């Protein structure tokens, strides 16, 4: 029987095995559903390995994240894990930050050595975020096994005092916290700037920011992050489709069927895991990506020329 599983992708300009793409989507969607990250930092390099041009890989990935995060947000929404108010504020900040970041990167490129700065920022960011989350969760897991220490009241930090003294304090019911409206706006902007400079969706920075700086509960963080990613990726997909013609819808559709299913399973797996376990797993994932990037930076590439658009 000559039933072929290959499908030609007109925008990517290559044919792919449907099952391989479907499986890749499923695996990344699973991570997305568990941790609330878009997974672009994993998906784009893997698609490039399958012969997809880097620009098409990144844009089509944004398109599929729209589907996966819709599915993931829905699943988390039903579990009561989406703080819409917080998500919208972070989104507004993210959009402002993204536009700022694009301008910053233009200036950096003119100054030269922008790529060096981007690579080093990326690795440092991953190392700090991953390392901090990893050890913090490890300590929390250890201390939770000793019930007495958890009962001792913690001294209020300077950070907490500053946060409490900010104007426009508001209640975020889903997250169960009271914060100044400026906090998500400013932090959203910062993450937007970093994400635009690094050329990523920013989920892996946004999640730790929500956990440690906004002090949101981990499960609400995941749902809210996915809610926010959905809107960011709708914007990116439409922009890339109109400006650069790099969105391959067929590729995106294949990926998203896999990833939307994966995200559903991920949301359930995440529910079964404790907040600290989730954090430590995400931290491990971030650290693995950091080591991969460090390896790429230190080892001589096989070919010293590369097509435009890749990292």
């Amino acid at each position: 029987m000559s039933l072929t599983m290959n499908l030609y992708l007109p925008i990517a300009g290559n044919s792919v095995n449907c099952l391989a793409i479907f499986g890749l989507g499923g695996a990344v969607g699973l991570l997305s559903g568990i941790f609330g990250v878009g997974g672009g930092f994993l998906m784009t390099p893997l698609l490039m390995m399958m012969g997809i041009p880097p620009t098409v890989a990144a844009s089509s990935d944004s398109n599929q994240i729209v589907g996966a995060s819709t599915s993931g947000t829905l699943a988390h929404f039903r579990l009561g894990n989406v703080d819409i108010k917080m998500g919208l504020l972070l989104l507004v900040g993210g959009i402002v930050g993204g536009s700022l970041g694009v301008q910053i990167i233009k200036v950096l490129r003119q100054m030269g050595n922008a790529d060096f700065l981007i690579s080093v920022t990326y690795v440092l960011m991953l190392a700090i975020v991953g390392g901090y989350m990893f050890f913090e969760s490890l300590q929390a897991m250890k201390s939770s096994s000793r019930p007495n220490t958890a009962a001792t009241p913690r001294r209020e930090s300077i950070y907490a005092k500053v946060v409490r003294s900010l104007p426009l304090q508001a209640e975020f019911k889903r997250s169960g916290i009271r914060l100044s409206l400026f906090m998500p706006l400013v932090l959203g902007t910062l993450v937007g700037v970093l994400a635009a400079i690094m050329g990523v969706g920013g989920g892996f920075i946004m999640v730790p920011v929500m956990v440690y700086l906004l002090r949101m509960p981990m499960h609400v963080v995941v749902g809210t992050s996915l809610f926010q990613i959905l809107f960011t990726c709708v914007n990116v997909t439409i922009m890339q489709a109109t400006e650069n013609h790099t969105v391959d819808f067929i590729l995106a559709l294949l990926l998203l069927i896999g990833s939307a299913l994966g995200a559903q399973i991920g949301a359930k797996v995440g529910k079964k895991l404790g907040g600290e376990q989730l954090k430590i797993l995400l931290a491990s994932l971030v650290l693995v990506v950091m080591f991969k990037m460090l390896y790429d930076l230190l080892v001589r590439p096989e070919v010293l020329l590369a097509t435009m658009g890749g990292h």
Partner: protein
Amino acid sequence: MIGNFSRRLAVALFLFAVLVIAPVARAEAVSNIVATPATIDIGAQYDGTTLQVSGTIPSGSEVIVRFSGEPATLHLREKGKVFGMLWMNVGKVSLSRVPSVCLIDSSSDLARQGEGAMPYRLQGLRHTITVDEHTGSTGIDVIDELLLLKRQAGLYAENSGGVQLQPEGVGGRGFKTSLHIPSALPPGNYHVEAIALRDGAVVGKATAPVKASLAGFPLWLSQLAFKHSLLYGVLATLIAIASGLLIGFIFQSRGGAH
């Protein structure tokens, strides 16, 4: 005086005809070159194809078959070491007259076909491709790296011995080969060349055109993406959202039974 001159002119023309035109006429002796299919349809199921090439070459010669695309400009990034330890993009390379695809095969070992074969080999592109811009400070061989990059993508290939020769006949000898056309073949105009060589010199050459064009669903989608890009972008996001919701609802209703 004038009669003497015209006699000399006639002799000179005769010699010119014998020495120059005759070998050229002989060099045109590659005949009947046929490439099938002449049009490659890139439809939804396209996953590369096999191009059959056949023809006739002069007696006692070997043949190189080359499939290549229209030369175009290409912009690439160059990787180099920064601060003596980190590999990253350090510059830009712009090249012109780069064939998008170049697939080569021959009837015998290419290395033994001498200088005459050189312009038709991948290394021969060194003399046709021009480096317009090279901002990186590393002393890399840009063409070598380009060949490596294209080979890795499956768009350039050089093989020996894949062209089959038939026994010598009266009008020369027939050849045939199958070239594997990669799935990443960009739509466009291509040509297949058959170059006949004898004793290290080219004795004949012929070409046949091959066209690759999008067909069916890929053609429709590509036109939508390029001609109505906003509609395409909006549709792509709407379908993604709808699919996400649909999968979410199906999964949820199934999961709800637990």
